[in-house]
């Protein structure tokens, strides 16, 4: 599989009252065609910011630098805004958390979906075009697993349940067959059944149409089972990245291990015992520690941790830690 999204050392700096803060600090990410990549990070880790940087929802006050920010053969940072908009508009789409709240509350779902269907796909004159728009919209709803399209198209966003609203938003996102779908915490605060439906839908889209999906989540318990690769970010720094199965079974970074222990409670932990946690709280933007930002909360922290560790590559995975949990065999 070829890499379609290639990010190397992406840094985003923000001007705050306390000086310049690096919200994202040298994050690298590669996404292959048709792959589901999970990006895990707690709040304040800059995971949504990374998604926005890829999509180009950029605030002019942010300073974005990167060694590489390539989408297929386009260098996104060197394109002018109009060109960039053309590329992202054609190839990428994004869905968000709380789907019900960002659908237009005053417009019927049917009209909202009809609006997203690209003009180029429609043929014929006025009435013919209008009819084919409706047919396309119905087909889209069927594709995301909504059988009762008539009822959904006639309703307003507040009448839909969360799961259906998220399906509608996925339908709108895939209307122009994007190559990359960025899902920013699509299932937070959803009940397990609905959540699994959305996961199955996303997995089907990725497998059936070769759509790459970047899933941004907060927590290891909400990883799509089909996800091939994953990355963990903490406070804007990449902690570990690699194949999902490998990371879940043999974490290298203390942060990954801590997250695993905190999320999968009953792995060898008796009920009612105290959970192993990271001490302290997530630092605020103004008070980022120097070096490895996990430093003050890391159980393995030593003196060297005041220098930011370089990404170590080993067996197709990467991690940034001076003192990994497992030994890295150099001959691998």
């Amino acid at each position, binding site marked *: 599989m070829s890499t379609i999204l290639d990010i190397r050392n992406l840094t985003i700096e923000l001007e705050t009252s306390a000086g310049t803060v690096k919200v994202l600090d040298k994050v690298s990410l590669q996404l292959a065609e048709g792959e589901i990549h999970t990006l895990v990070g707690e709040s304040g880790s800059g995971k949504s910011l990374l998604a926005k940087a890829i999509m180009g929802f950029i605030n002019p006050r942010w300073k974005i630098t990167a060694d590489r920010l390539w989408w297929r053969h386009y260098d996104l940072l060197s394109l002018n805004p109009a060109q960039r908009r053309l590329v992202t508009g054609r190839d990428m789409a994004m869905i968000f958390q709380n789907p019900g709240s960002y659908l237009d509350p005053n417009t019927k779902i049917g009209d909202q979906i009809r609006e997203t269907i690209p003009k180029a796909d429609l043929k014929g004159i006025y009435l013919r075009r209008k009819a084919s728009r409706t047919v396309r919209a119905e087909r889209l709803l069927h594709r995301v697993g909504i059988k009762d399209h008539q009822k959904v198209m006639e309703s307003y966003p507040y009448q839909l349940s969360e799961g259906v609203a998220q399906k509608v938003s996925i339908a709108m996102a895939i209307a122009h067959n994007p190559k990359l779908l960025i899902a920013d915490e699509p299932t937070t*605060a959803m*009940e397990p059944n609905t959540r699994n439906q959305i996961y199955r839908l996303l997995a089907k889209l990725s497998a059936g149409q070769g759509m790459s999906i970047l899933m941004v989540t907060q927590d290891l318990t909400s990883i799509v089972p089909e996800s091939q690769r994953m990355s963990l970010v903490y406070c804007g720094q990449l902690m570990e990245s690699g194949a999902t199965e490998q990371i879940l079974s043999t974490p290298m970074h203390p942060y990954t291990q*801590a997250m695993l222990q*905190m999320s999968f409670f009953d792995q060898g932990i008796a009920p009612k015992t105290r959970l*192993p946690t990271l001490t302290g709280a997530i630092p605020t933007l103004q008070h980022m520690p120097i070096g490895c930002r996990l430093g003050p909360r890391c159980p393995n922290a030593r003196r060297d941790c005041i220098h930011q560790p370089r990404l170590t590559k080993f067996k197709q995975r990467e991690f940034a830690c001076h003192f990994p949990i497992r030994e890295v065999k150099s001959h691998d």
Partner: protein
Amino acid sequence: MTNLLEVKNISKYYRAKNGWLKQRRICALQPLSFSIQRGETIAIMGETGSGKSTIARLIAGAETPSSGEIYLNGELLNPHDYQTRCREIRMIFQDSLSSLNSQLTIGRQLLEPLKFNSGCTHAEQLERVYVILQKVGLLPDHFHFYPHMLSSGQQQRVCIARAIILEPQIIVADEAFASLDPSIRAQIINLILDLQEDMGISFIFASHSPEIVKHVADKILIMHRGKMIEFDSTQALLTNPKEQISKNLLQSEQLNKALKHTTTQE
């Protein structure tokens, strides 16, 4: 030994307008009964709209039941007896920021329940607030902070402090862990386990995360469309759930997947 809390045939109906004069009764909760011992933890699981929040709100007194009684220590608890209720049963909500008053400092918010429910002097009340702040892992300095100045984990700690400050017998939590970050969530769970051990509080919480429920709860109550499907100890429900619904609720694909990997690895 009498049960700490006994819920008997409690139900809740809402009225909805149907046409101009007709009314329709919507059943949020069909009659159900269960009981809780001192120091026990009960998890309420179910899908959205299954009535799990309704149970929590009924026990906490945020709503009046349409029928049925609640007994606390063998005595009937009047639905409008807010004085006893707020001393013995306290509630924690999901969204900690919006459940705190944004215009008062943390200290004033914690003083408020003491002012109305204890006969202490002001000095004693202050003393108590400082003790509680330390107990939930905050600093005495946080007395003068406003809610927005704290992180979400600290806000949730303040909510817990507000819940335990009157030394209640029961704490009711409605999805109190859902919106927290994993590392903070683990800290809060530890805190609640510690407090429970210290003070012997019973804990009733609604949640849809099977991991947390398995770890924390002694007994699980499974709800489906306003009906109680099962109520049994965690162990029994995990080993042989009687209904398919409970099985679905209690298993998590991701967890099984991760466990499978670790076992194949070893």
